[in-house]
């Protein structure tokens, strides 16, 4: 697909123009220590220097709580009302690991011929403009994954990479090309020099990521360690909150609940759920197959690096390192899976 160039000033003008007609979500400062994807009014609110926002962009497409439908009991029928599709959205300023997360969940929500309406609806409505990372953090480990890189475009529609004072805009999907065509006045053509500069940039950024997981070894270890005594002690510091799963760009588990407004009407909702929660596996009769915290803790790592690999041939992780940073007790996913035996 085509490569374009865009200058700083033009990017600013583009985002401002996008904000007028789309819902633009970008890293936005909430308070002193918090930067999350929020709705942008103008480019000034965009925080460009932050790699890891506190929460992911996942919740802009795959909503934390989503109404599936409303029902109302009429005299002799039941009337259903589905939610109208949302406004077209642009997720701007996310990082390659955030965008890869969408790529991973896409496969899940379109698995074996089934298409998940609310998710794919939102996905089709959203254009993702990603910015490559120059200086990875100590918690980053995206290069461990096949094709993973701080300048990788998987899952993004447009990937912006800073080269020689400008941004190289790689239009990676049809949606990205359409957006660039609509606002073509801001873009100029890119030459081979810029493309080469991007490759250079990617190489330099990748070299800065020191931690690399040997995923084949991890998978092999996890395959054999289900009953291992390793899990008896490693989970002890974990307090079993759901912070790691809710800030993860790839965790997709959900729960479906009903909300009753009266005797005659109500709604059905889909809400994120976390395997760390005791309620996650609790059944109607009261039985809970994952009673203790050890089993719940093990499940998270097993799912990410073993079960999901069995099913989809890729890890349920993009290496963003948010769970390491946001964990109240500093549990390091890299260390846990590496040391599993």
């Amino acid at each position, binding site marked *: 697909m085509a490569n374009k160039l865009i200058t700083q000033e033009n990017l600013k003008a583009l985002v401002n123009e996008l904000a007028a007609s789309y819902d633009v979500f970008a890293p936005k400062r*909430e*308070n*002193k*220590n*918090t930067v*999350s994807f929020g709705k942008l009014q103008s480019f000034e609110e965009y925080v460009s220097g932050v790699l890891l926002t*506190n*929460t992911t962009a996942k*919740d802009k497409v795959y909503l*934390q*709580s989503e109404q599936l439908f409303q029902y109302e009991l009429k005299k002799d029928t039941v009337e259903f009302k589905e939610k109208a599709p949302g406004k077209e959205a642009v997720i701007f300023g996310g990082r390659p690991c955030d965008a890869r997360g969408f790529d991973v969940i896409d496969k899940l929500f379109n698995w074996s011929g089934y298409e998940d309406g609310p998710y794919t609806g939102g996905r089709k409505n959203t254009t993702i403009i990603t910015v490559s990372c120059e200086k990875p953090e*100590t*918690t980053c480990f995206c290069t461990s994954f096949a094709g993973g890189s701080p300048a990788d475009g998987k899952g993004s529609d447009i990937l912006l990479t800073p080269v020689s004072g400008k941004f190289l805009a790689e239009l990676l999907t049809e949606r990205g090309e359409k957006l660039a065509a609509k606002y073509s006045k801001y873009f100029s053509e890119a030459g081979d020099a810029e493309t080469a500069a991007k490759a250079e940039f990617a190489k330099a950024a990748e070299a800065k990521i020191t931690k690399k997981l040997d995923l084949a070894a991890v998978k092999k270890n996890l395959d054999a360690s289900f009953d291992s005594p390793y899990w008896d*002690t490693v989970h*002890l*510091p974990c*307090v*079993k*909150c*759901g*912070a790691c*799963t*809710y*800030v993860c760009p790839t965790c997709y588990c959900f*729960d479906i*609940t009903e*909300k009753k407004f009266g005797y005659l009407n109500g709604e059905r*909702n889909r*809400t*994120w*759920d*976390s395997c760390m*929660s*005791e*309620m996650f596996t609790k059944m109607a009769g009261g039985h809970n197959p994952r009673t203790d915290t050890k089993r719940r803790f093990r499940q998270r790592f097993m799912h990410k690096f073993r079960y999901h690999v069995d099913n989809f041939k890729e890890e349920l992780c993009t290496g963003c390192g948010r769970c*390491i940073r*946001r964990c*109240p*007790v*500093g*549990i*390091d996913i890299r*260390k846990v899976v590496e040391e599993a035996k």
Partner: protein
Amino acid sequence: MEKEMQEIAKKLLAEKKVDWVIGYENSFEPGASRPVFMNKPEDAVKLVFNKSCVNNLAVYLPKIKKQKAAVVAKGCDLRSVREIIKEHQILRENVVIIGVACEGVESSKCSTCTENKLDGVDFTVGTVKDLGRKEDMSDIEKFEELSSKEKEAFWNKEFERCIRCYACRNVCPVCYCPDCFANRLMPEYLNKVVNTAENKVFQQIRMQHVFGRCTDCRACEEACPVGIKLSLLTKKMSKDAKKLFNYESGKDTDSRPPLSTFKVDEEGIAEIM
């Protein structure tokens, strides 16, 4: 200081006085630390103590009920330990408290800390100094003076961000209920749907439940992945407990929590009805 702590831990484990030592170890990057559990004497060298040791390790004590544990406690954590002993979540003889003469960590509470004295610990690491810090309630008083509308707007903005991961609840040393109201479906006080109103209800009920037991240790605020200013609430509650019932949580191990007792003639709340 670290050496001293490691020696104590090593000795306790080698002599089989405790099953576990709960302390801090180095974490994913320089200057970061995390809680660690160890049961072998040779592991004791992992113990560290520095400015990044903000976790309140008292949270782990109710979970190891039947075993014996040694826990590294700063002055503020010590209050939580006392509170847990008071509420019979762990027996005093089952816990060995390694008090640390802390001079402040990277937490919002430290600038007004008056809690660095280590009364009733089994071991003291370092020397306790008078830090000369004073309690400061001016931010609470300032917030109280706002109108209801302004207060509501402030909290709506804060709880809009909440993702209901329950980190605040799970790191809280006094939130040890095995069956939390937030998980209960019958009666359903809290719907699973995450929105500002429900998030606020969760925190209102949680705060009410820990009133008079909360030691204002700020573990919840430190844990919050989206930086909600929970310290305002915990500080307010410790102020109320003092003002209304002349009670300070975590000062001792035998007084009654304010809401589980009463006086026929209440001084603090005489004019309330």
